[in-house]
């Protein structure tokens, strides 16, 4: 029983503590309307985190998320491609898949460090987008995306539903399928996985392609939310998503961790930003508290 409790990701307890604290200190924050809004704010992070967690479960990392989102924003809003909206969205998804495939190529074939590879692709993507966007100012986001990013059905915003529609199939697939078992095996010992004939290259490639595609979806929600192109969109996502994955119970190199924990952690982080704001903590104090929360939450609890 104790072992079971210890294996529950810190994100669940952390969320409960934060909610309880907010209930006492800022009751308005835990009203359904506000909670739903925070869920909506968390949606882009939660989508990106799903991909990041998959990468981390196969002992890889994806720091190129931010670059992909920038590129998506550019493709969608710069007006260089004057195409119908659905086609534009499809191009973004294909673009994401290509970036993921490039990342995976270097990681699996060159056996390069995923930190370095995805850092490099992020640099290339943001460098190119920045230099291209000097030529044209960003325009408006496609109407479908503005609908997803800004509209609500009743009091329920659409973007969390969009997240759920992505999350459920992916999480279920990872949990139930042979693929999911392979993911755990690679996470626990990639060399053993390789030697026992598990298709290591294919699985890591799928993980990175999926991660980049999810980054594209995350970009869709962000661009839709902002309603126009922007050059500082999704800047924090690579590092924040990393934190969320760890707080969500995925541990590097052990083959442990699922999909729900990281999603809850994404909510927890977003909620904590909101809580600190509503407590009127200034920018420096906010950063300091965030740092402290992350460090404390990531502290390993099980003695071994």
């Amino acid at each position, binding site marked *: 029983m104790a072992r079971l409790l210890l294996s529950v990701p810190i994100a669940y307890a952390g969320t409960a503590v934060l909610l309880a604290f907010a209930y006492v200190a800022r009751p308005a924050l835990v009203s359904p309307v506000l909670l739903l809004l925070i869920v909506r704010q968390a949606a882009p992070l939660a989508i990106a985190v799903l991909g990041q967690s998959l990468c981390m479960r196969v002992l890889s990392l994806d720091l190129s998320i931010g670059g992909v989102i920038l590129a998506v924003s550019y493709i969608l809003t710069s007006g260089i491609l004057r195409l119908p909206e659905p086609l534009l969205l499809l191009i973004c998804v294909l673009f994401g898949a290509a970036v993921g495939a490039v990342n995976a190529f270097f990681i699996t074939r060159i056996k390069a460090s995923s930190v370095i590879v995805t850092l490099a692709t992020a640099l290339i993507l943001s460098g190119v987008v920045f230099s291209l966007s000097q030529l044209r100012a960003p325009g408006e986001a496609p109407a479908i995306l503005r609908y997803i990013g800004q509209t609500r059905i009743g009091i329920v915003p659409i973007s969390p539903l969009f997240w759920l529609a992505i999350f459920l199939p992916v999480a279920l697939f990872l949990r139930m399928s042979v*693929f999911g078992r*392979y993911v755990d095996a690679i996470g*626990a010992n990639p060399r053993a996985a390789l*030697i026992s*004939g598990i298709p290591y290259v294919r699985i890591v490639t799928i993980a990175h392609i999926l991660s980049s595609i999810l980054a594209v979806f995350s970009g869709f929600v962000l661009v839709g939310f902002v309603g126009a192109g922007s050059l500082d969109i999704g800047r924090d996502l690579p590092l924040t998503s990393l934190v969320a994955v760890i707080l969500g119970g995925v541990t590097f190199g052990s*083959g442990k961790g699922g999909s729900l924990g990281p999603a809850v952690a994404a909510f927890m982080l977003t909620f904590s930003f909101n809580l600190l704001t509503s407590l009127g903590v200034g920018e420096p104090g906010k950063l300091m508290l965030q740092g402290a929360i992350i460090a404390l939450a990531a502290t390993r609890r099980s003695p071994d």
Partner: protein
Amino acid sequence: MALSSPANALVAFRSINKSFGSTQALVDLSLQGSAGSVHAITGENGAGKSTLMNLLAGVHQPDSGEISVRGQALRLESPAQAQNAGVSTIFQELTILPNLTVAENLFLGREPHRTGIIDRSLMRRRAEQALELVKCRVDVNAYCQALSVAEQQLIEIAKGLMADADIFILDEPTAALNGPEVDTLGELIHSLKTAGKLIFYISHRLEEIFRFSEAVSVLKDGRLVGTFETHELTQDELISLMVGRPLGQLFPPRNPHPSYLGCALEVSELVTSEPEHAVSFRINRGEIVGFAGLQGQGQREIIRAVAGVGPHVGGRVKKRGPGDALQNVDLSIVAVARSGIGFIPEDRKSEGLYLSLSIEQNVALGMLRQLAMWRRAHVRKSGIDDLLLRMRVRANDQGQLVSSLSGGNQQKVMLGRWLASGVDVLLVEEPTRGVDVGAKSEIYALLREFANSGGAVLIVSSELTEILGLCDRILVVRDGEITAELDGVGTSEEEIMRYALAGSTADARKEL
């Protein structure tokens, strides 16, 4: 000789208890070792031998009880403290670091130095002396990642024996060694003993225990069964003390009149690296074939190339496919595995097992092998339980993490994964490395059963007795070439050694 008189004990364990979570690894265990003796510790896999030694080596601390050295109770909090107390340990798992040179590895932790600056020339000189001692001929400036497991094990031994210590722990030092090297070790141990040191010696090779030790302590389920003078025991008595029953036959009966079911695997003109020779051989269904030969003659390279794990420059491998037709196998790991060939590596820790996953997850990965990736992963728990029972795996339940199993039980889980995976060809490196006699006979029986039901097995082993007792056919490898093909029943250790040691084949050809 007074074996259990605490008066002249150099090391004494008193009422030691140690548990890991719910596993009680040592129970109220007391044991003494005296100076100037070789004290063997033996017992089944998971009996607690390594745990006991790890307490003395400072890796773990006892839950209760006391360890005293030279009559003084000590609390050893770290390997460093144990070293300072005069304990030198050669661990069951190798601790050689691949990115350090031989010399650096030999002196890691106690580098010769002047105020922190390493005296490299002194270190090299002393390293050369140390290697001479164990008769290991490698360059002291070579990086250890280039060395074979056997060479690494020798370096590990040299490092341990060279230490300025009074107590030496050797936890399965010979798992990767063969005859001549074991002899050298025997001489070294003897000279330490005459110098008044205490040596704790753990091995599953019973003949070594009888050759080296004067006392033997048998552990079972974390308890001491007893300490005996070795020469008063017979091998069979020792086995029944360990296993709790007399062991019937170690090796399962061979099929005396082989009528094999046709070729399972055909290797033709396989070249593993540029200057090597090409090898060709075939394995039939229902047959166990072994590679014999001295350490490092290329057996490992051949089996790894066939498995798609090691490099190959040329050649072809065909395997029986559906409808008995031989089909070409692409020599990449994934393709080899998909064609129904299982490869069981010698280094289970880094290449074989998922230590941080449970037994169930490890075994299930084998069972799911035949399914496509997107299929539902459904595993029958009872199937796994049966397997664990048959292999006599000492574990609480199938949810237990593999990292918490003893070395031998880990080996069984790794084998079990492939036996349950439905492959029909097994390539096995060192099938019983670090496995106790009881489990050994289980593993042999399982491999034989696998063969009898139509499978084909190829093994590489450094234990000649294992090759002789288990294999139907023996291929002797020397200098990358198959120099002899012998019938497992009719041959002898001497005959194998003759082919393994014979002057180079080039000379032999000249003579013809």
